[in-house]
């Protein structure tokens, strides 16, 4: 079924340890022992920590999803020539999705850019907080994807292909690495409590991987996990008493089937459920955070609090040993808030003001706690936007060029990778495909993307599908 072969030998490991490296390597070694103690082909799947193929830079991932398609030329990829050509008809017919761009008229950004940080990265005035973390991020300006419709492009960003049904990145990583804290899920999803963004739960789906690798939604309101607490309150002591009686029944049943380990797992699950009630409650409890920290994430301001609280929870979850955290943007004014087809000058500043602070705060907070080096943070939408105007006030979708940033966990600091053409339509320099980004993300986690495979329907499937995509790690992104 599964293939987790080709692990580094223990000896290689010890040799390397002689040359001195940090706690991650040590943790890796301990996990390595655990992995080697088990069988190569697990008969059952679990979330215990697994050793990666190589010493990891990062042990956890936070994905800051920016659903809708952030407009790169208004945010992080300045195009002076485009501004100069503002209002001019463009000669090449650009690929559009919707109506309203038939005039093919170029639209310069109405926003000012300024060089920020020691690295001098050009960032738009719409992102004053992101501007303060530029020395910690790798900005990729040369991303491209394969479909210019939200649903397909989001599926691509998460699963490497545009068709629904494959496992998401978080599922693959949970499958490959398990998780550190057995009292919490490996893969936690933090969405706006008001609703889902585009594609809903599809973007944390396990596809054909076993169901335990699916993302678990943690709510920032009410109980953090579905059914974590009894839906109908019972008198004190009632549930413990029920669980004791249940354990007695299950033990008797278990003793009749000594060879069936899934019955054990089931018994342990009731114990785990009890522990999870405490652990998840703990993670949600922001009382332990200082006022200063809460302010950092903008929890004191209704404009920034919605997204900020999820960024803060992401840090708490990673701190608690969760492997993969996916943070979603607000679902208002639209479930794809970066989708500025019209009224860009109203809508874009709005979504920037909702999310700019939280993302930057997360990087600063992780850094000051020493967590940034071992956490890979990804800020990404599903595609970019066009340099031509749509109905005079907006921009349509663009799959040929878009920007995203990565931070921490072995990615370069204060670095800009690649470039789009002079109007920001196509990535032309050091282009990065979505599978290449996935391969690089796996790399910082110590995973060889070619070897994290799962046998499905007669084929060794993987996230990056190298036989078809020829994806390779992009070394230039790594420090």
């Amino acid at each position, binding site marked *: 079924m599964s293939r987790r072969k080709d692990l580094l030998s223990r000896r290689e490991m010890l040799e390397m340890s002689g040359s001195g490296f940090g706690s991650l390597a040590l943790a890796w070694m301990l996990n390595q022992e655990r992995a080697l103690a088990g069988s190569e082909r697990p008969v059952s799947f679990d979330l215990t920590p697994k050793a990666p193929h190589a010493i990891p830079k990062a042990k956890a991932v936070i994905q800051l999803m920016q659903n809708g398609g952030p407009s790169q030329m208004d945010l992080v990829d300045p195009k002076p020539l485009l501004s100069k050509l503002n209002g001019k008809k463009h*000669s090449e017919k650009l690929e559009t999705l919707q109506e309203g761009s038939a005039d093919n008229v170029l639209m310069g950004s109405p926003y000012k850019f300024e060089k920020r940080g020691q690295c001098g990265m050009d960032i738009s005035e719409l992102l004053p907080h992101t501007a303060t973390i530029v020395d910690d991020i790798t900005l990729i300006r040369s991303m491209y994807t394969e479909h210019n419709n939200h649903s397909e492009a989001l599926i691509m960003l998460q699963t490497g292909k545009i068709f629904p049904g494959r496992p998401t990145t978080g599922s693959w990583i949970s499958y490959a690495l398990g998780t550190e804290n057995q009292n919490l899920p490996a893969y936690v999803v933090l969405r706006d409590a008001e609703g889902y963004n585009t594609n809903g739960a599809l973007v944390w789906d396990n596809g054909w991987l076993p169901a335990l690798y699916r993302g678990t939604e943690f709510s920032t309101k009410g109980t953090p996990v579905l059914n974590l607490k009894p839906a109908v309150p019972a008198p004190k002591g009632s549930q413990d008493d029920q669980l004791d009686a249940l354990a007695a029944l299950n033990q008797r049943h278990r003793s009749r089937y000594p060879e069936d380990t899934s019955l054990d797992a089931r018994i342990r699950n009731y114990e785990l459920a009890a522990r999870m009630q405490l652990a998840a409650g703990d993670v949600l409890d922001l009382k332990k955070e200082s006022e200063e920290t809460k302010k950092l994430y903008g929890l004191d301001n209704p404009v920034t609090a919605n997204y900020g609280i999820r960024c803060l929870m992401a840090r708490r979850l990673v701190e608690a040993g969760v492997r993969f955290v996916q943070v979603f943007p607000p679902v208002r004014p639209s479930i794809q808030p970066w989708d500025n087809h019209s009224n860009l000058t109203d809508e874009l500043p709005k979504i920037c003001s909702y999310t700019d602070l939280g993302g930057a705060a997360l990087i600063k907070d992780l850094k000051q706690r020493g967590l940034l080096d071992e956490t890979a943070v990804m800020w990404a939408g599903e595609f970019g936007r066009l340099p031509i105007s749509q109905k005079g006030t907006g921009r349509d979708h663009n799959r040929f060029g878009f920007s995203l940033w990565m931070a921490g966990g072995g990615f370069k600091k204060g670095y800009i990778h690649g470039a789009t053409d002079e109007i920001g339509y196509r990535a032309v320099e050091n282009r990065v495909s979505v599978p290449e980004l996935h391969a690089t993300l796996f790399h910082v986690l110590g995973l060889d993307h070619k070897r994290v495979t799962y046998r499905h329907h007669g084929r060794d499937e993987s996230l990056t599908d190298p036989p078809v995509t020829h994806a390779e790690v992009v070394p230039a992104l790594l420090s």
Partner: protein
Amino acid sequence: MFLKAGFGFVLSTALLTHAAPGSSTPQFAADVLPILQKSCIGCHGPKTRMAGLDLHEVSLVLRGSANGPVVERGKSKDSLLVKRVQEGSMPPGGKNPLTSDEIAVIARWIDTGAAAPASDSAPAAAYVSTITEKDRQFWSFQTLKKTPIPKVQQSPLVKTPIDSFLLAKLEAKKLSYAKQASRTTLARRAYLDLIGLPPTPAEIDAFTADKSVNAFERLVDRLLASPSFGERWGRHWLDLAGYVDTVGRDVQSNGYKVGEGRWKYRDYVVRAYNSDKSFKSFLSEQIAGDEMFDWRNAKEYTPDQIEKLIATGFLRTAEDPTDNSERDTPLLRYEVIHQTLDILTSSTLGVTVGCARCHNHKFDPIPQRDYYSLMATLTPAYNPVDWTPVLKRTLADVPPAEREAIDKYNAELDKSIAPKKAELGKLYEKTISPMIEPAIAKLAPKDREPARKGALLPEEKRNARQAKLVAELGVDLSPASLLTRMSPEEKTTVQALESELAKLEKQRKSYAKIEALYDCGPPPETFVHRRGDHESKGATVAPGGLEVLSTAGEVLEKPTPSSSGRRLALADWLTREGTPAASLVARVYVNRVWGHLFGAGIVATGDNFGKMGSLPTHPELLDYLSGEFIRNGWSTKKLIRTMMLSRSYQQSSLAEDFPKNARLADPQAADPDNSLLWRMRLRRMESEVIRDCMLSVSGKLNPAIGGPAVPTITQADGMVIIDEKEITDPSERYRRSMYLVARRRYNLSMLGVFDHPVMSTNAKERGASAVVLQSLMMMNDKEVHTQSGYFADRVLSMANGQSTDDALIKSAFRLALGRLPDEKEAATLLGLLGRERERFREAKKSEADAFREALASVCHVLLNANEFLYVE
């Protein structure tokens, strides 16, 4: 001849290579390609294909980019390729620019006709088969073998020939069967396996009391005749068919579209299993029911013909996103066909045909050509170049001529209805407007128009946003309220109009829609997609099956006046007795039936009978059963009966029940995986069975069969529950799980946690994971809690006020698990009952309520017991 031609080619290439620019005709490979390679192919090559443009082959250059052609043959001036490089916008950024000489070469190549190299334009060479005799010898590709039934020593254990085959292998390892399971266990096993519901204590008692030798046989026959049998076994088939109720992309949590006639296919499957339709007919109708009669020209349809049209819903389950014009692209159209092929081949042939989509299969003898030959059987119906949008792909339960007549009649009717409706609308608007305008003025500007529109609509026609806005207005817009605000004349007019409209509406005629598959026109050309890329056209193929299972040159086509007959020929190819294809189809199906009853197939990889799949543990048995299955008219019920009446099915699942006998080996050492079946396997039940059992035990199950699906809704917290607002009758919420709306994902949370499949294509097998969300669901979910209460009520009402606590515990235990508790178990639950009663008393419940709650708590524990989830 060959030598001469070869020489000529070399000579001319040599000449051209040395020719100065400006002279003679440029050749693509020698002259043009190197230029393109230097400057263009980095972005417009096979790897990146920016803007869909690939310049490395003539055919692809001529095809152009996603935005249109880049070359006009003979007209370099009109060719975008030349324009772009001339104006310098390509290559972008001035990298590797073309010299004017190079541009001239390309221009001249275009002006001289943009000819392809000889090898590229030559007609495709005759197809040479790569299938060898050795390929055909692979066990699963051969026709069924007849093996004599083996002789065994332990003949008293032989109840059917199955036992002879199994015991022969067991005896070779000095093994035997475990003891016969107890009557109680056997009853529960048979009920869960055949109807997916637990037996009641009375039913167990009846079976236990039946002392006749054929008591179990009678039980099996009775359950096979139960209408619930078709639900249980139909669901297995629906997994393979990838059945969902939704149409179009089904990715958002709410707002899914339910196909009008989808459920009819689901009910067809249930009926087919209940009537024990031969699997051969069942499969054939599903693949080609529409080609079995002239549905276009029939005067009227017989019920059987309607059934045949409904059956083709089998090939309509792939996710078809082309309901949205943005997604109606060749790529996504082809994806619908690919997925349909996956469903068709994985459910019938059990080989991974999909691998041959991009290249010849790496392990199995399935050339890429086979894949596209199979595709050619579908393209007359799913025509990628003349696509029928998914919402229009329906037939009616009346012939097309009648459908047209009804549409015309209704259109006429609408003509008389429309003015009356308009008049009525105006009268209402006149009344409603002054009522709502003050409130509307207070709304945000963007909400005003939708609120206005919503207010003018009858309540049931408002969408969610309108309903919300109208509610915010705080105005009573009920018909009664409106009438009171009208003048007497207005009131009379309104009432007259309403009654006239009602009368007219009654005259409307209707027909039901069927989501069928049918040929939409003449077959298009179907060709091999090189590297699986539909834009990279390879050889044209004729409709056919897998070559390794076919006779030489077999083409699947039987044209009829109204269709290509390709699918009909395919159905015949799959089910014609005595052929390798039908043998494989029978094996794959029999193996799946075996897997459902024994917990694992004779071939462990039920979806892969190829070289990378497992070998059968009992190949002779599989062939014997498959042969019997065909001889018995492809009867599923007879097949199940044969399996269940074997001694092997009836043995205990406990290792401790294996006979302790010095002549026998230790089974845990000799066959630790129990692959030889020295005992029955312990199986966790599927998601639907778990929920259905809970409802059955609580006494709330609504046993109604069939009909439109029960709607569900995703709550803000992500929990999927039954949509109480949309159900017509409260008892609908307790329908069997297979009747809840089947979605690709976002199925009822209760089902989702228990490995309910994500239906991206189809579900080849079910998982049986043990994850913590299951425990949380069973322990804390509101619905499970509610059902525990009903369960307690049922126990109390059965006792009729007469029973002791001990008797109540025993009664609850039997209802949930079929058996009586042992002393320790009874004591555990009795203790819990007492303490819980105290707690609820302290929580100030009345004596009766405290007892009911305490008993419900015990019932809740029983529903959580591992034993409840398993078939022993």
